[in-house]
C-alpha cells in the first residue's frame, strides 16, 4: 500500500545534503513551512542554495536558516520586507549571494523546470538590468528574453491537507509557489495540518497530485511567522 507519510519533520528532511538546492514554498508568511525549515536548521545541512520569493522575516523560519549561515545563495524576487534584517547582513557581508529574478519569471522558471522545459521566452525585464546577459530574441516584432527552467534537489512545502498518496490541497493564498515547486524538485516534502487516507480528498479539488510528492508529515498546528515574531521568538 502506498503510504508516503513519515513520522517526524526530522525524518522528512534527514537527507538534505550540504550544497543542495532547496525550494521553499511561501510568499511572505503565507505557506511558509516553518516546522520543516526549523527541522532543517536542526539537521545541519549547509552551503544551501534556497529558492523562495522572499528572504524571511524576524529570526524564525527562512530568516533563521539564513541567520544560521546555512544559505550561500538566495534566488528570489523580493529580498526586502518589514522585519527582514537577517538577509541584508548576510548579503552585505558576502556570505549569501543573491540572484534576483522578476516574480513572474521566477514562478514560470520553476514551472518549466518541473515540466521538462529547459527554456522559454518572456517579455519581462527586457531593457532592464535584470535582462542583462540574457539572450534576446524577437517574435512578431516584440523583444523577449530567453530564461532557463529551474529545478532543485528538495522542495519544502506547507499544505492544508495531504493524503498518504501525496495529494495536497492548500489554504487560500498560501498556495502561491508551492504547487510549482512540488513539480520541480527531485524530492518534495510536504507538511500538512492533517494527513488523511487516500480517497478522503475529492479528486476534483486536488491542487498537487501525489506523483509530485515524496514525503508527507503531519504538523497539526503550524506556527505563523507573524505570531512568532510578535512573541519575540527566534530559532533555535
Amino acid at each position: 500500500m502506498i503510504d508516503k507519510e513519515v513520522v517526524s519533520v526530522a525524518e522528512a528532511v534527514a537527507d538534505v545534503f550540504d550544497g543542495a538546492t532547496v525550494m521553499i514554498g511561501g510568499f511572505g508568511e503565507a505557506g511558509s513551512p516553518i516546522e520543516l525549515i526549523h527541522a532543517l536548521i536542526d539537521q545541519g545541512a549547509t552551503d544551501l542554495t534556497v529558492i523562495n520569493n522572499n528572504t524571511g522575516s524576524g529570526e524564525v523560519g527562512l530568516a533563521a536558516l539564513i541567520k544560521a549561515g546555512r544559505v550561500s545563495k538566495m534566488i528570489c524576487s523580493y529580498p526586502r520586507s518589514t522585519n527582514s534584517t537577517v538577509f541584508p547582513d548576510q548579503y552585505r557581508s558576502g556570505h549569501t549571494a543573491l540572484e534576483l529574478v522578476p516574480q513572474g519569471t521566477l514562478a514560470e522558471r520553476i514551472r518549466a523546470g518541473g515540466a521538462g522545459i529547459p527554456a522559454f521566452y518572456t517579455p519581462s525585464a527586457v531593457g532592464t538590468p535584470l535582462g542583462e546577459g540574457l539572450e534576446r530574441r524577437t517574435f512578431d516584432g516584440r523583444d523577449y528574453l530567453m530564461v532557463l527552467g529551474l529545478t532543485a534537489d528538495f522542495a519544502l512545502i506547507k499544505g492544508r491537507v495531504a493524503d498518504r498518496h501525496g495529494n495536497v490541497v492548500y489554504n487560500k493564498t498560501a498556495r502561491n509557489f508551492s504547487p510549482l515547486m512540488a513539480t520541480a524538485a527531485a524530492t518534495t516534502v510536504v507538511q500538512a495540518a492533517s494527513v488523511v487516507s487516500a480517497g478522503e480528498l475529492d479528486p476534483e479539488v486536488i491542487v498537487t497530485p501525489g506523483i509530485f510528492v515524496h514525503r508527507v508529515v503531519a504538523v497539526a498546528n503550524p506556527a505563523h511567522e507573524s505570531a512568532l515574531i510578535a512573541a519575540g521568538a527566534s530559532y533555535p
Partner: protein
Amino acid sequence: MSEHSTVTGLTRDEMAQRCALDIPDGSYVNLGIGIPELVAAHVPEGREFIYHTENGLLGMGPSPEPGAGDPELINAGKRQVTANPGAAYFNHADSFVMIRGGHLDLCVLGALQVSQSGDLANWSTGAPGAIPAVGGAMDLVAGVKTVYLITQHTTRNGEPKLVESCSFPLTGLGVVDRIYTDLAVIDVVDEGFQVVELSPGVSFEYVQERTGAPLIPADAGTCG
C-alpha cells in the same frame, strides 16, 4: 515659481480618486503598493472592479475586521485582505499567466521616475549597498494592457520624477500609458508627455517648471 505658496495640488486620496474615475466598469485591476492601493477606496458609484493580487487571488476584498483575518490570506504587500464573492485562488504560475498573458485590463503602480517615452523606473534607485528587490513590477509593466502611474510630481527634494530619460534602473521600456500626479494628469504619447488636465489652481507653467521634459498642452493636437 510665483504660485508656490498657494499651490497644494491633489492629496494622495484625491490622486487615487481621480485615477479611479478613468477605470471602466468591470475591469480586472492590479493595484501596486502605496498610493495605488487607495484606488480601491474610490470606486465610482455604479462601477465594479475585480482586483488581482499576484500572490494568487482574483476578487480581493478589503482588509478584514480586526482579529478576523487569516495570516495566509494576504495581498502582494503581505497585508491581510479578504476574498469577495466570486473570488478564486490559484498558484503563482497561473497568476502570472494572467499578468504576462495580457488578461488584466489595467494596473496602477508607483514610480521613482518615468521618461517621456514611457520608460518606468520604480524598483531601485541603484544606490550602492541597497538590497535590490523587484517583485512583480517587471512582469506587470510587460504584460498588463494599460499601465497607469500614481505619483507625486516631484521627489521630496523637489526633483522632477517625469524626465527625458530615467537615470534609475528601469522596470520596463515604453510601458507607461498615463500618469496621475498631485499636479496633473499626463498621457505618454508618441511626442512625449501630453497634459490631459491640470489639478485645480495649477497652471501649465507651474507643472512644466517641475517636469524634466517638455510638456505638450492639453489642447495641442497629437497623434498619440
